[in-house]
């Protein structure tokens, strides 16, 4: 099959968990990578090595271990900056996860004064395909500030409805202060036109926030290479979906915007000086990193993005495209199965949500699990997107750089088995 990662068999050996078996000696077919990715040995080893040999708090320990730990933590920031092509490494802020990164922006904007202040009459624009993490923080912001939340609807084939009567001309106006949307949908898989929406939002002076949680793992991100008017002002993603550990996320923001935003959490590390009467704050990135950060997680994330950089994100994207196309073909052979979202692999990422007539997603996932096939069932933290398509929940398979065509075959075969188990035709 064309497009697969060269030496896929060797790449798979980098991921020890893929060797394990499940109950009954069945091999693991892991198709839940949009939920969390598996970890290569180098990430695991790097974290263990840090804990075994270099562990100390960062920036405040005046000893050799402290210097080593600080160096490893800051090197991870450099690696992440390279991974996303950040114009400046100081624009990379470590957070707990993507949700915290998005909440950081929404909260800081709630406290902002001057040009960035948001109030009655102002609008925040999101979309109907967002993960709850990119809906709720904006609901909270607009509710607290008396501003209005608006959103792009979706077309029947799972794209943002940018051309309809409630499209981009209607929704991006002088009142729009923030536009926040996902690069790649975690449920529909849709790849959104980041450059086009960002350009239009910038024309009215709005801040553009992009949830890159699903795009960062599977597509090249090169912020510096984007036209400045088409470059988002903020992107957020999480470590554990890019073969890194949990507990670490990334917020990248345009330096002058971050410098203008009020602090989010107060505490150690984020200050310049503290007096009882008041404090002054450190410059970015430390301004937004109060308290001891997740040090070993950051170091692990550094190893993770290095690993992806070695493989090449272009090659990862080609692999995902080939596997996704193969999966869409395979799923189309299952009677009663309906894919939610674009049917052209070129327009989507590697997460494919679907319905199967007569079987609830929970029951599908249960039967698949008994065959060793791990998928996700439920609303995937995207209830509005499900409601848009008139479904309460769905089953989602999501591939990644280690997924093989044989694993897609196993999924399709297990879906056939599910139909026979529930006596459907």
């Amino acid at each position, binding site marked *: 099959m064309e497009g697969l990662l060269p030496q896929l068999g060797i790449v798979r050996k980098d991921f020890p968990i893929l060797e394990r078996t499940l109950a009954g000696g*069945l091999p693991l077919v892991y198709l839940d990578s949009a939920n969390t990715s598996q970890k290569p040995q180098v990430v695991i080893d790097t974290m263990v090595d840090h804990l075994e040999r270099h562990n100390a708090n960062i920036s405040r320990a005046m000893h050799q271990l402290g210097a080593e730990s600080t160096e490893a933590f800051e090197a991870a920031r450099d690696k992440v900056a390279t991974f996303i092509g950040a114009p400046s490494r100081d624009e990379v802020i470590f957070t707990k996860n993507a949700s915290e990164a998005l909440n950081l922006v929404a909260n800081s904007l709630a406290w902002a004064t001057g040009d960035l202040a948001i109030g009655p009459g102002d609008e925040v624009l999101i979309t109907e395909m967002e993960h709850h993490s990119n809906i709720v923080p904006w609901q909270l912001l607009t509710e607290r500030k008396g501003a209005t939340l608006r959103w792009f609807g979706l077309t029947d084939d799972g794209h943002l409805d940018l051309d309809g009567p409630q499209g981009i001309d209607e929704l991006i106006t002088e009142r729009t202060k923030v536009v926040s949307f996902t690069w790649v949908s975690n449920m529909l898989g849709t790849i959104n036109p980041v450059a086009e929406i960002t350009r239009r939002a910038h024309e009215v002076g709005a801040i553009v926030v992009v949830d890159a949680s699903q795009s960062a793992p599977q597509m090249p991100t090169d912020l510096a290479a984007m036209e400045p008017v088409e470059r988002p002002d903020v992107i957020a993603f999480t470590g554990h979906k890019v073969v890194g550990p949990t507990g670490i996320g990334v917020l990248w923001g345009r330096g002058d915007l971050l410098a203008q935003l009020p602090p989010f959490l107060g505490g150690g590390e984020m200050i310049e000086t503290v007096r009882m009467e008041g404090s002054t704050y450190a410059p970015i990135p430390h301004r937004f990193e109060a308290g001891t950060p997740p040090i070993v997680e950051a170091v692990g994330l550094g190893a993770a993005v290095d690993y992806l950089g070695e493989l090449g994100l272009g090659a990862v994207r080609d692999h995902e495209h080939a596997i996704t196309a193969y999966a869409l073909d395979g799923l189309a052979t299952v009677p009663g199965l309906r894919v939610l979202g674009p049917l052209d692999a070129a327009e989507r990422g590697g997460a494919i949500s679907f319905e199967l007539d007569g079987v*609830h997603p*929970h*029951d599908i996932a249960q039967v698949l*699990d008994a065959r060793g096939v791990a998928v996700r069932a439920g609303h995937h933290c995207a209830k509005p997107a499900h409601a848009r398509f008139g479904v*309460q929940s769905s089953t989602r398979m999501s591939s990644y750089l280690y997924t093989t065509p044989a694993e897609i075959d196993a999924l399709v075969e297990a879906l056939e088995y599910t139909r026979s188990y529930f006596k459907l035709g």
Partner: protein
Amino acid sequence: MTNAPGQDLDSLYQEIILDHYKNPLHAGLRDPFEAEVHHVNPTCGDEITMRVHLDGADGVLRVSDVSYDALGCSISQASCSVMADLVIGKPVEEAMAIHESFLTLMQGKGQVEPDEDVLEDGIAFAGVAKFPARVKCALLSWMAWKDATTQSQGQTQEATNG
């Protein structure tokens, strides 16, 4: 039906459960009722709207009707059907004891021997207790029923006192 290797699917999906799933008893929302509740399983999105009607005409407060509109998997749908069929017509006190017995079964991690005299078709859910992720599915309707019944009791008592 062939058994999947690995996990024991057939212990989860008993024929009784699949029968109730395909032909749920007492489904639909009906009048009269004293309380209506809406419960959701936030992790999966399963939802149920349930009405309970109590009647104390013969001096014993009884579950006169349980009606519902539910969206969910086979386990949650079948559990609702079994539950409604079990408690309708029973004195509230006895129905609450059945509820307690089902709860004990579900929380027993597969180690509790169910009492068929009390739970009837409900014993089919013994296998569910071995699948921790599915226990909440089986309990959704039972929790909704207890909530609605407790509210109905309040209503009924107020009416009696008033």
